[in-house]
C-alpha cells in the first residue's frame, strides 16, 4: 500500500509537469529544434542533397544556388550537406558526455552521501579539484595529454561536468536520507540498493533532467569551440566546429560561409536551453498550473 501510494503521487507529479509544459511556448520551440537536430543526425544520408565529403574545386566558395542551397566551401563541398551531417558528432558528444557525467556523478554522489566520513571528504575534494581550474583550460590541458579525437572530447567533457551531478546527487541524497519514509523503509529491512532505487532515484530524477538538458547544450557548445581551436574533432570530419575553423580563414572574402555553422550552433543552444527552462519552471513546485509563465 505504501508503495502504490508513492507511485500514485509520482504519476500525479508527472501529469502536473506535462500539463504545465503543454501551455508553455518554450516547450514547443525548444522541442522542435531538438527534434530537428536528432532527425538530421539519424536521417542525414537521406536529407543531405550531396555527399558532405565530395569536393568540387572548380565550384569552390560559391554563394547560394539551386544546386547548393547554402553555397559551397573552400574545396567545393556542399555546405548544407555538411551542416546536416554535422548534427551527428554533436549528438554523439552530447549524449556520450552526459552519460559519463551522470553515471559517475551518481556513483560518486551516492557513495559520498552514504559512506560519509573520509570518503565523503575525499570525493568532495575531488570535485573541488576539478572545479578549481577554469573549465576551458582544464579541457585544453587534458586534450593535450590524450590527443584530440571524438572519443577524447566525449570523455574529457564528461569528466569536467561530473562534479555538477555529484554535488546535486550528494545533497539530495543527504536530505532524503533523513526523511521519515526512508528511515521507516530501512527499519523494515530494505537494503541500501532498494532504498536508493525506490526512494532516492525518483527524487533526484527531476534535478538531473533539468541539468542534463542544459549540459547537453553546453557540451555541444564546447565541442564546437574546441574543434574551432583545432583541439577537438579534426577535418575533414563534418562538425560545426570544424566548419567554423575552415571558414574562419575566409572570413574577409566569404563571410557568409562562417555564418551557417554559427547559426546552427546558436539554434542548438537556444533549443536545448528553451526546453530545459520550460522543464525547470514546470518542475518547480512553486509554479501553479494557473500562472504558467
Amino acid at each position, binding site marked *: 500500500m505504501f508503495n502504490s501510494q508513492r507511485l500514485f503521487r509520482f504519476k500525479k507529479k508527472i501529469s502536473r509537469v506535462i500539463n504545465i509544459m503543454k501551455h508553455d511556448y518554450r516547450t514547443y520551440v525548444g522541442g522542435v529544434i531538438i527534434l530537428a537536430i536528432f532527425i538530421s543526425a539519424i536521417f542525414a544520408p537521406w536529407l543531405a542533397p550531396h555527399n558532405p565529403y565530395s569536393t568540387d574545386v572548380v565550384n569552390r566558395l560559391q554563394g547560394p544556388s539551386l544546386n547548393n542551397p547554402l553555397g559551397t566551401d573552400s574545396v567545393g563541398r556542399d555546405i548544407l550537406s555538411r551542416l546536416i551531417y554535422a548534427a551527428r558528432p554533436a549528438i554523439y558528444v552530447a549524449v556520450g558526455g552526459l552519460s559519463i557525467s551522470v553515471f559517475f556523478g551518481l556513483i560518486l554522489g551516492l557513495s559520498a552521501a552514504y559512506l560519509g566520513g573520509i570518503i565523503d571528504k575525499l570525493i568532495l575534494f575531488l570535485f573541488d579539484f576539478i572545479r578549481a581550474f577554469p573549465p576551458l*583550460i582544464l579541457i585544453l590541458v587534458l586534450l593535450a595529454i590524450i590527443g584530440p579525437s571524438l572519443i577524447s572530447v566525449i570523455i574529457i567533457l564528461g569528466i569536467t561536468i561530473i562534479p555538477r551531478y555529484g554535488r546535486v546527487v550528494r545533497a539530495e541524497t543527504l536530505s532524503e536520507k533523513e526523511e521519515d519514509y526512508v528511515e521507516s523503509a530501512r527499519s523494515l529491512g530494505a537494503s541500501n540498493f532498494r532504498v536508493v532505487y525506490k526512494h532516492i532515484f525518483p527524487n533526484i530524477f527531476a534535478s538531473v533532467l533539468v541539468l542534463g538538458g542544459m549540459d547537453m547544450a553546453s557540451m555541444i557548445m564546447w565541442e564546437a569551440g574546441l574543434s574551432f581551436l583545432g583541439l577537438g574533432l579534426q577535418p575533414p570530419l563534418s562538425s560545426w566546429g570544424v566548419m567554423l575553423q575552415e571558414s574562419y580563414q575566409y572570413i574577409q572574402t566569404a563571410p557568409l560561409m562562417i555564418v551557417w555553422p554559427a547559426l546552427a550552433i546558436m539554434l542548438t543552444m537556444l533549443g536545448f536551453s528553451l526546453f530545459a527552462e520550460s522543464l525547470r519552471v514546470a518542475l518547480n513546485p512553486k509554479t501553479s498550473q494557473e500562472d504558467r509563465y
Partner: protein
Amino acid sequence: MFIYIIKRLLWVIPTILAVLFLLFSLTYLLPGDPADIILGPRATDEMAENLRERLGLNRPWYQGYFSYIRDVMRGDLGVSVFRSRPVFNVVMEVLPYTLALTFAGMGLAVINGILIGLLAANYQNTWFDKFLTLISFITASTPTYIASVLIIVIFSVNLNLLPSIGLGEGGLLNSLYYLIGPAVALSIGWTGYIGRLTRSSMLETLESDFIQTEKSFGLPRNYIIYKYALKKAIKPIIAVIGLGVGRLLGGAVFVEVIFTRPGLGRLIVDSIFERDLPLVRGGVLVAALLFVFANLLADISYAYFDPRIKQE
C-alpha cells in the same frame, strides 16, 4: 562570517597544491619524452641524459614535486622552449591584455544586463518585457566564439566599423577602439544572464513586504524603485560578479584567438600546439591562480550579500 572567511581562505591552500600537482605531473603525462621534445631529433643520448638530469627527471617524483613547488614560490616558472625566455616574463607580458579584456567584458555585461533587467521589470508582462526577456535568453545561450565571429562578420567585414585584428598602435584611445569588438563579444553571454537575474531579483523585491509598506505610505513609484528596491535587488548581481570574472577568463581564450590579440588564453593554446611544456605549465598555473582567486572573491561576496550561505 569571520570564521567562514578564514575557512574559505585556508581551503585555497590544498586547492593550489592540487593544481600544482596536476601541472607537475604533466611532464610524465604528456606523450613523448620531454627531453627529446626539447632537444629535437638530432640530439645524442648523452645530451638527452644531461638535460634529464638538469630538469630533475631522474629523481623520484616527490622530490621533483617539492622542488617544483619551491621554484614556483620563488617565481621561477622555468624557461620557454620555443621563446628561450623565462616563462614568468612571457606570461606577465600578456597578462595585462587578458585582464583588461576580462574586466571590460564584465563591466559591459553588468551595465547592460542591469539596464535590460530593470527595464524588463519596470514594464513587467508587456510586449517590451517579453522582447527583452527573449533578447536576454538568446544572448545568454550564445557562445563567446559565435558572438566574436558574428561581430567580425557584421561590424568589421560588412560595415567596416571595427577592426578585427590586433591591439591597435599607440595611444589609449586607439587601444580602447580595438577593445570594443572583443569586449562586447566577451560580454554577450553574461549580459543575458545578468539581465535575467536582475529582472527576477527586482520583481521579487518589489513584491516583498517592506516595499508594499512603502507603497502604502503613498511614496511615488520611481522613488521607491530607485531609493529602496534597487539597493536590495542589486545584491545577488554583485554576488555573481566574482563568478563571472572566472568564467570570462575562460571565454577570453576564444576572443583572443579569433581577434588575434595577445593574451594568456592564446598563449596557452599556442604553447599546447608548440608542445612547449614549461610555457603550458606556467600559463595554466597563472590562469588557475586567477580562477581560484576569482572563486574565492565570489564565495566571500556571496556570503556577505546573501547571509544564508554561512550556515552551510
